[in-house]
């Protein structure tokens, strides 16, 4: 706890009505006996911003600790009601516990208040946790489900939450295999699907996409986009190839829109641990073939290179912000609706 982090109440409760009651109390800073002093009275009359309901699902205490740290940092800037579901279906005894807390942060220079409900369930109850969630949501605000690890696509809880959610945020860099992509796509494209998909990996690629697009904003370069003949994406070896596949899938799907089929090659790169390390776009053109390259540099930067025929054109260096999870999550909060580009990139990535 920091000086500017004010925890208002923390209690353990066992049923949903008690949780609701406790939320009301921590929200308005009531004293346990229900009497308000002058400051509490003022707080009761004070409005504050809330921007969303955030639900996150974790399966063990270790994961819970990591998630709690991210949510703690997120709470400095995003007023929300957060429901953390610690769901342990495999544990035998049925159990339901909840802890409600509220905190006000002022690091940003503003009072940002967040309520957090941690619900811990075992056994059968864990499968039906979505039924607990609905009454605890703040009405009229979007519902975002964040799955820090690869979700269990077959679990009842995940599918119930998909029904509730406006947006489901995953990180395809966190344990996703190639076969998981179509399952993710299926969630986004379900009949009457309300939930759109957000992916930390997609947000990490914003800089790459931006710089790649800028190549073809340059004078005389647009025709070369239509003459793209190949894409090579280099990637580190330590984690999944999801990010490289997505980036390749993005180029492929954009060009497919205008009837151009371009092959994508994934190239393992020994010099990098993980993530995309280099993107090369090969095109034809009247002055001969060209190669547009973007490479990841140390210290959070991208450098570019352009070779047209035998000529090297001037490259440049721009920033590629390494974003911590709370920042990636915060980006997701600002994105509305289905991201068709992402869904098309995902679809191309599994081809």
């Amino acid at each position, binding site marked *: 706890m920091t000086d500017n982090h004010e925890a208002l109440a923390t209690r353990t409760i066992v049923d949903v009505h008690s949780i609701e009651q406790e939320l009301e109390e921590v929200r308005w800073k009531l004293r346990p006996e229900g009497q*308000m002093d002058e400051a509490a009275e003022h707080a009761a009359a004070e409005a504050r*911003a809330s921007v969303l309901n955030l639900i996150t699902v974790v399966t063990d205490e270790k994961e819970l600790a990591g998630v709690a740290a991210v949510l703690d940092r997120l709470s400095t800037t995003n007023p929300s009601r957060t429901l953390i579901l610690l769901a342990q279906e495999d544990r035998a005894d049925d159990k339901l516990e909840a802890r409600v807390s509220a905190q006000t942060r002022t690091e940003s220079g503003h009072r940002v208040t967040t309520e957090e409900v941690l619900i811990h369930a075992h056994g059968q109850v864990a499968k039906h946790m979505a039924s607990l969630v609905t009454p605890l949501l703040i009405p009229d605000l979007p519902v975002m489900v964040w799955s820090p690890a690869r979700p269990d696509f077959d679990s009842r809880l995940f599918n119930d939450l998909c029904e509730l959610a406006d947006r489901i945020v995953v990180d395809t860099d966190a344990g996703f295999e190639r076969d998981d992509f179509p399952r993710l796509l299926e969630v986004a494209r379900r009949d009457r699907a309300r939930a759109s998909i957000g992916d930390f990996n997609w947000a990490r690629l914003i800089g790459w996409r*931006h710089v790649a697009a800028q190549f073809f*904003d340059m004078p005389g370069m647009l*025709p070369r986009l239509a003459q793209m003949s190949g894409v090579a994406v280099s990637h580190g070896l330590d984690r999944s190839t999801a990010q490289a596949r997505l980036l390749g899938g993005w180029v492929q799907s954009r060009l497919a829109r205008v009837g151009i089929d371009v092959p994508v090659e994934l190239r393992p790169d020994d010099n990098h641990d993980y993530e995309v390390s280099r993107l090369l776009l090969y095109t034809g053109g009247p002055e001969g073939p060209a190669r547009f390259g973007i490479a990841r540099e140390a210290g959070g930067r991208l450098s570019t290179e352009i070779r047209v025929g035998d000529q090297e054109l001037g490259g440049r260096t721009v920033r590629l912000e390494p974003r911590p999870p709370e920042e990636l999550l915060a980006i997701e909060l*600002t994105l509305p609706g289905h991201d068709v580009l992402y869904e098309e990139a995902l679809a191309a990535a599994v081809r």
Partner: protein
Amino acid sequence: MAEAPVLDRNILREGLILARAPDPAVMVIFGASGDLAARKLMPALYNLALNRYLPSGFSVVGVANTPWSDQEFRTQMLDAVQKYSRTQPVDRSVWQSFAEGLHYIPMMFEDKDGYQRLSDRLTQLDRERGTSGNRVFYFATLPDFFPVIVEQLGASGIAHAGEGWKRVIIEKPFGHDLKSAQALNRAVHAVFSEPQVYRIDHYLGKETVQNVMVFRFANGIFEPIWNRRYVDHVQITVAEDIGIERRGAYYEHAGALRDIFQNHLLQLLSIVAMEAPANFDAETVRDEKVKVLRSIHLVNVDTDVIRGQYGAGWVAGQQVAAYRQELKVAPTSMTETYVAMRLKIDNWRWADTPFYLRTGKRLPSRASEIAIQFKNAPHQPFAKTAVQGMNPNVLVMRIQPHEGASLKIAAKIPGPVMRLRTVNMDFFYGSSFLVESPDAYERLVLDCMLGDPTLFAREDEVERAWGLTDSIEAFWSTQPPPEFPNYAAGSWGPEAADALLERDGRRWRRP
């Protein structure tokens, strides 16, 4: 092999924040060794580069009479960015890459040979960096130099050379009265057409000023009550706690009326009072703003405009000197450092609704805000004792320092008896959006490069604003000298300003 399709747009750009990228261009900064370039322009350009908004090949040619080389210019600009950039520390690699496009030509602004050297350098940059003749000419000099620079750009052929677009950004003040503004417009139009001219008022680049339009026109609940039927009056305040700093020479000729009222205050007034534009095109938005300026009615300058000048006093625990003791200010100066006025807007929406505007230096705090005070509820069913001390609803849009909005509403105090109290519902943009706000100059420079003049002042806006300012100045010139100083530094202005509202049964808000 199948023939490649012809693309009419960059399909890789779809879905990115900028739907369109600025074309590669050279920005020629006249006055590149000055304060504005160091404090605002170069940090803005660096941050645009850092965040990937600048196109490849983007270059700058600094022009000023300080005898710097390219390398010295780069070093000076790096110092400036290290000192003034909103993002720190400066990323050396990004700076290195950006600085390769920085060039400098030492010359006097009247020097014809200098323009030939400038022309040669621009041609060279087009060749080496692919800037295709696209130019932004940024006038960051004293206003006296604007006409001569425009004339020389025309005479040297630089303004029209080759292919590519040419745009000119002109800093405020754009003229010092209607006559000089018209003369400057004529001089500029002799070389550049109106769509090429971007008259900058950095206030319009502020996020919250743009948010006023979003607040009004993207929400369905405010516009139906945004009129004379529900609004009692509007107060617009631009208060500064600082004095004139080192700008005595300029301020002696400008005063609060020219320095703030003619541009910032009237811009805010236009935005708050305008009709909903049919779309967000530059011309449509600016048409609506000009209609407001044309409808402004100053009933009686004698009684409805108050001016003041600060004497010595205390601001934020610091003892400060009187205006007349400031550097480069005449000891008998009659320049106003405070203006307050009551305006009416003669149209169906606002007829008989007073707009109170004020601006001043050395006021108790720095605050810019627009306050819409609504009329009282037509009937109070509660006992008199219950509503004692209640205030009408006020919607405040704060521009600085804490950007946001607040709505003052009545609420029942919990308890067995009916007692009401006024409470504020506050919304701070900073507490709901993580995104770091760009500096106003970043937004405006980028808009200019994209060819979007929505947030820049148009010729008729500027001239109408000067027309209003001139009418006040003309009246003052017929009056005996005011008794200055008439407010103490650290107070909220002259007593006459309070009386202006008290006459109408109202009072100024404390921002």
